[in-house]
């Protein structure tokens, strides 16, 4: 198979896998939550642009820090996508020049495309703020966009060159060392300075700056271009290349795992010794299954962070929805509790998959009842946090009471019917 065909074949395979994960991520429940969350964010963003207090903020110098930080976050997103696999080290060895010419070229092109979309999204998100600050912000907005995309292109090319064996690399020596200092310099300091110039210089100065930047870009692009002749003198450092690809893949999976459980992925755990104190009190003299569920949950790296993120997002939304009607806040609170319960369910199914669990002389009803006890305590905590958040941020007794009543109803319904039903469904 040709190197270019191999890349596109892997690309298609990855698309299929990503589509599968997206289906998992955008389950019915998450879509509802997302719509409400987006509504809350848009509402909060509108308040940020229109309220007198926020206008005072935009007139200070702090807005520059916010915008630069935001764009810097954007610059960190979008890795070099190579789809290299550990077995390539064996099967593609000796075919380096072909891989560099065909495979890696497509890899860089695709990575640039993805990264450009991300940069465009990040710049677009701050356009309303920029238009508030500048009377005519078009030049600065387009300059920010051009800079973000072109700088990201450079970062990707540097990343590509790191995949080559060092003795054959014809690149800037300073980029070879993968140190924190290098990262800070090229991923934070240099782009920050440039972005600051775009924001504070006069329009004419921005014109000159951007023209100089574009000339520099052309020179750099020529420098990084790999001709057929050059490709023959390069070789891939397969250890680094496969490691980079695995890390990139893990980051993508981690993104999906932020709000959905991704099946058949290598599971990692965290000891979290700081939780031992609470855990010991929680499980002391308790039935075996209860001990098992709590300990697994406390050291889990998927379900617990997922649940915590949901709680935090839920608290933020019920907190920022100041002008929204009381019923909407109560619904968001109830939805948060429901989603937390939904995301806890894999703890039950995953525990039952272990042969240790199945071999223990414990009846199914005992296993189920222990799991519902875990839900009960988690629900108490989530409900308390949501109610306190609303009480503190709104100061409205009516709103707090409405949320309190709805959460009690939802919690009882979940424990009495939804969770037993889901457990029955999972057993089937």
């Amino acid at each position, binding site marked *: 198979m040709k190197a270019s065909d191999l890349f596109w074949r892997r690309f298609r395979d990855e698309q299929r896998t990503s589509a599968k994960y997206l289906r998992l991520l955008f389950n019915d429940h998450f879509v509802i939550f997302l719509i409400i969350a987006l509504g809350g964010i848009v509402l909060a963003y509108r308040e940020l642009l229109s309220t007198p207090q926020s206008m005072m903020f935009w007139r200070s110098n702090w807005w520059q820090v916010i915008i630069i930080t935001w764009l810097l976050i954007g610059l960190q997103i979008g890795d070099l996508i190579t789809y290299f696999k550990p077995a390539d080290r064996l099967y593609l060895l000796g075919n380096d020049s072909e891989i560099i010419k065909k495979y890696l070229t497509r890899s860089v092109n695709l990575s640039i495309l993805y990264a450009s979309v991300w940069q465009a999204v990040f710049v677009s998100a701050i356009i309303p703020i920029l238009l508030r600050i500048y009377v005519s912000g078009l030049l600065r907005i387009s300059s920010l966009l051009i800079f973000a995309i072109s700088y990201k292109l450079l970062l990707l090319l540097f990343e590509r060159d790191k995949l080559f064996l060092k003795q054959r690399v014809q690149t800037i020596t300073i980029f070879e060392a993968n140190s924190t200092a290098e990262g800070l310099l090229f991923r934070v300091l240099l782009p920050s300075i440039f972005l600051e110039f775009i924001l504070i210089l006069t329009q004419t100065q921005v014109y000159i700056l951007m023209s100089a930047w574009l000339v520099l870009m052309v020179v750099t692009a020529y420098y990084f271009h790999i001709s057929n002749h050059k490709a023959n003198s390069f070789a891939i450092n397969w250890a680094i290349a496969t490691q980079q690809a695995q890390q990139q893949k893990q980051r993508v999976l981690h993104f999906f795992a932020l709000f959905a459980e991704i099946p058949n992925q290598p599971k990692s*755990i965290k000891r979290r010794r700081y939780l031992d104190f609470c855990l010991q009190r929680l499980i002391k003299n308790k039935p075996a299954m209860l001990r098992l569920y709590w300990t697994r949950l406390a050291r889990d790296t998927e379900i617990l962070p997922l649940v915590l993120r949901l709680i935090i997002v839920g608290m933020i939304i019920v907190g920022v929805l100041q002008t929204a009607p009381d019923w909407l806040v109560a619904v968001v609170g109830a939805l948060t509790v429901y989603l937390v319960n939904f995301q806890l369910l894999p703890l039950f199914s995953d525990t039952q998959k272990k*042969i240790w669990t199945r*071999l223990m002389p414990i009846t199914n009803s005992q296993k189920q009842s222990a799991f519902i006890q875990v839900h009960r305590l988690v629900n108490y905590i989530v409900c308390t946090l949501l109610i306190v958040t609303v009480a503190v941020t709104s100061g409205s007794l009516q709103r707090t009471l409405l949320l309190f009543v709805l959460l009690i109803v939802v919690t009882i319904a979940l424990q009495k019917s939804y969770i037993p039903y889901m457990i029955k469904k999972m057993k089937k």
Partner: protein
Amino acid sequence: MGLKINNISGGYAGNNILKNISFDVPNGEIVALIGLNGAGKSTTVNHIIGELQPQMGSIVLNDTNIVSEPTAFKSQLAYIPEQPILYDELTLAEHLHLMLAAHEKDNENTWERVVSLLTMFRLEDKLNWLPIHFSKGMRQKVMLVSAFMLNAPLLIVDEPFLGLDTLAQRDVVSLMKEQAKLGNSILMTTHLLASAATFVDRFVVLHDGKVRFVGTPSALAEENQLTVDHLDDLFDLMQKELANEG
């Protein structure tokens, strides 16, 4: 009394691997289940531990049927799988306490036995370790401690010597003998016939999902015109027979 397997047939997803298998593991005996790969050893074990349900026949342990009383059956069972399986999130101590709690034996008396087993397998200073830090051999030792600490009426050991050093292998044999002396039944699977012949009471030979032979090591050797020391050659004979049948 002990374990009684009566005419069981079964397998995975409707595939009838076992064909009318019957044998006993009486109290106080060590029985080795042997056979070539694919003969049905693992399938038999999976039926006994309740992972598979027989299509016909019964599995009874001290008058307790696995199908009608699965929890009571499992409370009399300790199992050491071929591949060590542990919860990634639990430390060694937590695994042991969990298993003891499940068997309602989490008390100081039992813990004394646990400590002696941990010392025997040189795990006494690793109680707070998570499985990720254990080597394969150490994981297998955790499984051994978890099973032997229960003093269960039936102990099933799937390939007991796999991944263990010589010292640990010797300890496993002495522990199995100790369990037999206590009146517990032990069923093990193995490919090391000559070694097993030195301590097992009986062999059950499985061939193509059927019980081919049940008897003492010397009877097995005699039937196949081998000496007990050369029982491992039995597999060559079975392989040739299978090739001829094919």
